[in-house]
C-alpha cells in the first residue's frame, strides 16, 4: 500500500467515525513515531475491523473498469465515423480537407473547452463535474453491484473515496486524464479504421473551395504536411496538390502515387495532430495525478484531527511522583464551622499576627475600642525576630487574656501553627483568636477557611468558643474593587 492509499484509508476511517475519534487501539510501542505515522498505523489497524481498503480497491476498480468500457465504446465510434465517411463519400473521391476537419475540429473545440476548465476550473464548475461523475458512478454501482449494501458504511465510504479523488487537484487531473484517454481511443479507432479502409479501397483525394483562393489551400496543405514530412512520411508535392484540385487534369500515370501520398498525409496528420497530442496530454495528466497524490495531505487542522492528535500523541506526559510523602498528615478538622461573633473578653493583651496594612488599622481601632489601656503595647508579629521577641516577653505580661488578631482569608499553615502552639505552651494564659474578615472571599470559601482556623485552634489547645470572627465589611466598602 503506498502512502496515498494509506492516507486515503485514514480519511475512510474518519468518514466512518464521523465526528469524533474513538480512542486508539495500539499495542506496540509507538514512542518514536510522529503523529502522522501513528495516524496511518491506527488507520491500518482499524482497517482490519472496518474492511475499508477492500472497498476502496473496489471503487478504484469500478472507476477503471468504467473508463475502459467507455474507451471501448469510443474506439468503435471513432472507427465507425471513418467508415461512415468513406461509405457516404460519393464514388471514390474523398474531400481531403473535409475528412480532416471532420475529425480535427471537434477535437480542437473540446480541447479548448478542456483547457478552459482546467485552468479556470475553480470559478467555472464549483463541483458540479465532481457531483456529476459521482452520480453516474453511484448509478452504475446501484444498478450492477447488488452486494453494495453488505458493508454498513458502504455509501459513506463511497462518498468519502470519490470526494477525495474527484475534488481539488486530484479530481482535475483524474477527469482530465479520462477525457484525454477517451479522445485517444477515439483517434486510435479512427486511424486503425482509416488504415484498413485505405488499404482495401481505392480513393482519390480531392479538395475544393468556393470562396478561398487556390494559393491558400496550397499553403494550408504544405503547412499541414510540414511535420509529417519532417518525420519522413511521404507527403504530396506542390504539383500533386495542384493536380488534386477538383477539376484539374489528372495525369493517370501518377494517380497511384498521388493516392498514396494523400493517404499518408491524412493518416499522419490524424496521428500528429489528433492522436499524439492527446496521448501526451494523457501522460502528462497521469504524471500530474501521481505527483498530486504524493503531495496529498490530510486536513490536519480540522477538529477531528486536532482531537485525534490529542489522543494519539498527547504533548503532555506524566512524570509521576518522585518524592513521596512519608510522614503522617494531620487529620483534617471535621467539627462545627458555626461562626461566633461574640465573646471578646473584658480586658486583653492585643497581638496582631501577619495582617495586611488595612487589617492592621482595623485591628488598632478594635483595640482602641475594647482594650484602650493596651494601645501602646499592641504589636504586629510578621517575621522571625518579632516572633522570638514576643515569646521572650509574653511571660512578663500580667494580663490573663491574650487576643490574637488574624486574617480570616489566609489559609493557616504549619509555621503559624507552630508559633501559636509555642505561645499557648508557654504559660496558662487564655488565648483568643480574632479572625478579621475583609469580605474578600465568597461565603462558601469563608466557611471552609473558618473550619481551617478551628482546626488550628484545636491543635493549639484553644477553645473553639474563643475563635471569634470580626466582620469588617461596612467600614471597608472600598476594600475590593
Amino acid at each position, binding site marked *: 500500500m503506498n502512502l496515498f492509499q494509506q492516507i486515503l484509508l485514514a480519511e475512510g476511517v474518519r468518514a466512518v467515525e464521523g465526528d469524533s475519534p474513538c480512542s486508539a487501539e495500539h499495542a506496540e510501542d509507538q514512542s518514536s513515531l510522529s503523529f502522522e505515522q501513528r495516524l496511518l498505523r491506527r488507520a491500518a489497524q482499524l482497517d482490519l475491523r472496518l474492511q475499508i481498503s477492500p472497498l476502496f480497491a473496489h471503487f478504484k476498480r469500478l472507476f477503471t473498469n468504467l473508463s475502459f468500457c467507455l474507451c471501448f465504446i469510443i474506439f468503435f465510434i471513432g472507427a465507425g465515423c471513418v467508415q461512415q465517411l468513406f461509405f457516404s463519400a460519393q464514388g471514390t473521391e474523398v474531400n481531403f480537407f473535409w475528412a480532416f476537419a471532420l475529425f480535427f475540429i471537434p477535437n480542437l473545440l473540446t480541447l479548448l473547452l478542456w483547457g478552459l476548465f482546467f485552468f479556470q476550473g475553480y470559478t467555472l464548475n464549483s463541483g458540479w463535474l465532481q457531483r456529476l461523475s459521482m452520480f453516474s458512478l453511484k448509478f452504475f454501482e446501484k444498478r450492477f453491484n447488488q452486494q453494495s449494501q453488505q458493508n454498513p458504511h458502504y455509501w459513506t465510504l463511497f462518498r468519502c473515496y470519490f470526494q477525495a479523488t474527484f*475534488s481539488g487537484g486530484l479530481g482535475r487531473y483524474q477527469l482530465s486524464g479520462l477525457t484525454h484517454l477517451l479522445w485517444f481511443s477515439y483517434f486510435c479507432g479512427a486511424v486503425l479504421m482509416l488504415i484498413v479502409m485505405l488499404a482495401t479501397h481505392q480513393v482519390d483525394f480531392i479538395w475544393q473551395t468556393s470562396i478561398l483562393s487556390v494559393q491558400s489551400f496550397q499553403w494550408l496543405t504544405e503547412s499541414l504536411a510540414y511535420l509529417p514530412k519532417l518525420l519522413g512520411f511521404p507527403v504530396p508535392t506542390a504539383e500533386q496538390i495542384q493536380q488534386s484540385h477538383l477539376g484539374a487534369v489528372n495525369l493517370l500515370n501518377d494517380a497511384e502515387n498521388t493516392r498514396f501520398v494523400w493517404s499518408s498525409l491524412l493518416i499522419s496528420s490524424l496521428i500528429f495532430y489528433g492522436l499524439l497530442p492527446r496521448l501526451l496530454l494523457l501522460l502528462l495528466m497521469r504524471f500530474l495525478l501521481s505527483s498530486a497524490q504524493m503531495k496529498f495531505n490530510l486536513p490536519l487542522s480540522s477538529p477531528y484531527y486536532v*482531537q485525534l492528535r490529542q489522543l494519539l500523541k498527547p504533548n503532555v*506526559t506524566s512524570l509521576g511522583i518522585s518524592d513521596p510523602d512519608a510522614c503522617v498528615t494531620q487529620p483534617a478538622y471535621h467539627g462545627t464551622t458555626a461562626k461566633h461573633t461574640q465573646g471578646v473578653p473584658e480586658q486583653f493583651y492585643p497581638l496582631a499576627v501577619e495582617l495586611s*496594612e488595612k487589617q492592621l488599622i482595623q485591628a488598632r481601632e478594635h483595640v482602641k475600642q475594647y482594650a484602650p489601656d493596651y494601645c501602646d503595647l499592641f504589636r504586629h508579629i510578621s517575621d522571625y525576630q518579632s516572633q522570638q521577641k514576643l515569646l521572650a516577653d509574653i511571660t512578663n505580661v500580667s494580663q490573663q487574656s491574650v487576643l490574637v488578631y488574624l486574617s480570616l482569608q489566609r489559609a493557616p499553615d504549619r509555621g503559624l501553627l507552630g508559633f501559636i502552639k509555642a505561645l499557648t505552651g508557654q504559660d496558662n494564659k487564655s488565648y483568643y483568636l480574632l479572625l478579621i474578615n475583609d469580605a474578600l472571599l465568597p461565603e462558601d470559601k469563608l466557611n471552609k477557611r473558618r473550619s481551617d482556623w478551628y482546626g488550628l485552634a484545636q491543635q493549639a489547645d484553644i477553645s473553639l468558643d474563643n475563635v471569634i470572627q470580626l466582620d469588617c465589611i461596612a467600614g471597608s466598602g472600598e476594600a475590593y474593587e
Partner: protein
Amino acid sequence: MNNSGLSVAVVGHANAGKTSLIRTLLRDTEFGEVADQAGTTRHVEGGALAIDENKNLALFDTPGLEDSMRLFYLLSTFFDGQSVDGIERLNYFLAHLSDYPELQQEAKVLRALLNNDIIFYVIDLREPVLGKYRDELHILSYAAKPVIPVLNFTIEGAANLEQWKTQLARLNFHAFVSFDNVHFKFADELKIYQKMQTLLTDKEELLQELINQRRQQWSELFNAAAELAGSLFIECASLRYKTFNGEKEIEQTTAKLQQVVREAEKKCVRRLLKLYQFRKDDLRNSQLPVEQGGWELDLFSADNLQEFGIKLTGNIAKGAGLGVAIDLVTAGMTLGAAAVTGGIAGALWGVKQHYFDEIQAKIKGSRYICLNDVTLQVLWLRQVKLLQALQKRGHASFAKIDYQITEQRRENELPENWSKWLRKARSRPEWSSLSSQSIEPAENKRLLFMKELCQELVKGESLL
C-alpha cells in the same frame, strides 16, 4: 533532571496556586490535587510538555513551604556565623535532615530546587509581603538557580502588585511575570517562556521552539473550535422540515425541530469542551431557548422567494402564475421542484396581494418549518460567548462555564453579514445533515461559507 530538555521546579508558599499553575500550563485538569487549603500537595510530582520527539519541558510540583521562617533561621545558624555559600547550607541541612523531622516537606522543596534548571516561585498576590515570604525568597536565592516569580491571583490581588514588585526588586528578582490560573491569558503563558529565554541563554533555541509550537497549537485549537461552532450554525440555519399544513402536524414537526437543534448544540458544546480538554461538568447547564412555534418558512414567505432571486414583474405572469401554482400544489410539490420552478413562485409573489387568500385556502399541500431568526441569533451568540470563555479559561478553574446570553446589547453584537448568511444558509437545505442523510459536507460552496463564518469567529481574537 533530564539532560536534553529543561526542568522547572514550581515552588511557593502553601496554597499559592502551584498545582494550579502546572494544571494550567499542561492543560490538564487532572494533574495533582487542588484544594483551597494549605498542604494539599504532599509530594513532588512531575508533568512534561513535549517540545519535540525527545525533548521536553518538565514541570515539578512541590509541597508548599509552610515554615520558611524557621528553616531560614536554621540555615543561617549553620557553620557558626561563618560566611558560607547558600548552597553549602542547603546541602548541610539536607544531610542533617533527620534532626528536623518537622521540616520534611521543606526538605523536598529544597531538593527540587537543587535538582532542576530553573525555579518558578508562585506568589499569591492577595497576600501582603510578610516576613515568611521574604524568608522564602532568601532561601531560593541560596539555591543559585534562576528564579522567575509568578504572580498569581492578579485580579483579586491587584492592589498589592506595587508592594510585591518593590519587594522583589529589593531582593534582586526582576524577571517576574503575571499569570493568573483562572483568568487565563495565552499571551501571559508565552511571557513565562520568554522570561525563561532571557534567564537561560543556552536554552534559548529550545524555548523558542516551545514558544512556536505552543503558538501553533493554540491557533490550531482555536480554528478547530471555530470550525465546530460554524458548522453548528450552518447545520441549524439550513435545517428545515417539511410538514403537512394541519395544526397538529406543524406542532409535531416543530417539537422535533427543537429537539434536534438542542441535541446538535449540546453535542457541539461537548466536543468543544473535549477539544479544549476541560471536564464535561465544567459547564453550567443551559438549554437553547428555542422559541415556541419555531418559524414557518413556507413557499410563500418573502424570505423564501427572495432566495430564488427571481422577481417577475408585469402582468403577463400573473394570470398564468395562479393556475400553475395550484397545479403544482396538487401535484405534491417537493422542494427540489420548487427550486426549479422558482420563477413560478416568483410570479405568484407578484399576485400575492390580490389572490393570497384564495391560494392559501386552496393549498392542502405542505409547508416548511425552520428555526426563526431570534433563535439562530441566540445560537450564534452563545457559541461566540462559549468560544471566548474557553479561550480565557485556565485548567485550574473550578467555576462553571456560563454561556447564557443575556439581553445586554453590548455583548450581543451580530456579525455584519448576518442577514446575508441567513438567506444563504436557508436556501441550502442540503447543507444540513440534521434533516437528510445524503449531505455533502465537503461541498465547495459550503466550505467557502464555513471559512467565512470561521473568520468572523476568529476575528476578534488576536493570538498574541
